[in-house]
């Protein structure tokens, strides 16, 4: 039983780390602001979720797990809200997305 818990916690940690890396790589490499927001969002959901879950599996049922759950709830509440506000603020101020073709540009006129 303990071995299964340990193994699943490790899988969660490795997967979470992978998603955290991918998310940062996306923020670094993607071409425009809006796609970068999308990349950053991965950390808030998959990255943080899996890493915190992995840690919780290590801690077992204890106060630590309760705190981890609280941190996760907090991130789940604030992360998407912040992403939403980030995207909305930039759009309102007139930052245009980088679009592929002329046709896209025409259809996105505000």
């Amino acid at each position, binding site marked *: 039983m303990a071995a299964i818990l340990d193994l699943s916690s490790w899988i969660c940690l490795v997967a979470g780390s992978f998603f955290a890396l991918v998310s940062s790589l996306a923020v670094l490499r993607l071409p425009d602001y809006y796609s970068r927001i999308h990349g950053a969002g991965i950390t808030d959901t998959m990255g943080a979720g899996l890493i915190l879950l992995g840690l919780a599996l290590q801690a*077992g049922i204890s106060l630590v797990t309760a705190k981890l759950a609280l941190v996760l709830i*907090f991130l789940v*509440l*604030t992360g998407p*809200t912040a992403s*939403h*506000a980030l995207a*909305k603020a930039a759009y309102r101020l007139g930052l245009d997305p980088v679009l592929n073709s002329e046709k896209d540009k025409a259809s996105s006129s505000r």
Partner: protein
Amino acid sequence: MNGGVIDTGLIDMILLAFLVAITWAIVRLRDLFGAVMLTGIFSLISACLFMVMDAVDVAFTEAAVGAGISTVLMLRTLALTKGRSEPHHNRLELGPLLLVVVIGAILIYGTFDMPRYGDPQAPVHTEMAARFIEQSGEEIGIPNIVTSVLGSYRGYDTFGETTVVFTAAIGVFLLLGVPRRGRRAGDALRNDIVLRISAKALIPLIMVFALYVQFHGDYGPGGGFQAGVIWAAAIVLYTLVFGLARAEKIFRRRPLELLVAGGVLLYGAVGVVTMALGGNFLDYDYLASDPVAGQHYGILLIELGVGITVAAVMVALFFLFVRRRQV
């Protein structure tokens, strides 16, 4: 939970390298707004470093203060002064550079006489600190040594610091307190329903968390300074989302000013009461028949005083900066 202390030296070095890189970027960047953003990252990394160096209480404070309040105040100042970027080119100034290099070289020369990082035999660890670590558990009876030292052994010092915070607030009151005529515009985020709903869910959570930090400070990281800033942060969030007018209706000016002074007064009053009971100023042993219980009461009360003053000062500062209209 696998126990065993793992060496964190490598993490420490990497984070320090990050800090040096970000500072270099701050120097180079002409965009002031960007520089303030980088200062936010600087503060986050340094708080991580405090954590790596086992200073949990300091990391707590830096997280709340550096990343939160001071960034907000700097941004507001930029808005008020319409500063966006420095007009001059960022050439290296030779005079200051020379001065800085010389001072830095002298300081680095000085470090060669210092004990290496983490040396358990260093002189700082063997005298006073050793006594605090060994005795505070029995004398004060609370696990968090930092709170014991802060509240009891160095209570005078903390009283002084609280008074400094109070005095700084008076200074800002004098500088920005004069109301300025101007038209009050609508609040831009009022229509943002996503933000409003999640703020409504978050603000009570933050306030309860602040109370937890305040009263759990004896057992874990936390205490009056941190709790005060976190409480203030909840009100800052409220103001940002619902507008200054609504926030000022709830947190009126007069009670806020009374609280700014009230916290310091509570701290001082504890000292006076211990004197009346026959002890020295801030000698909590006399607060109860059992000295350890007395110490516990005393620390609880003065932490409350600190918390009240810090929270009220931070909220008042924020309101003063926001109330000020653009010239």
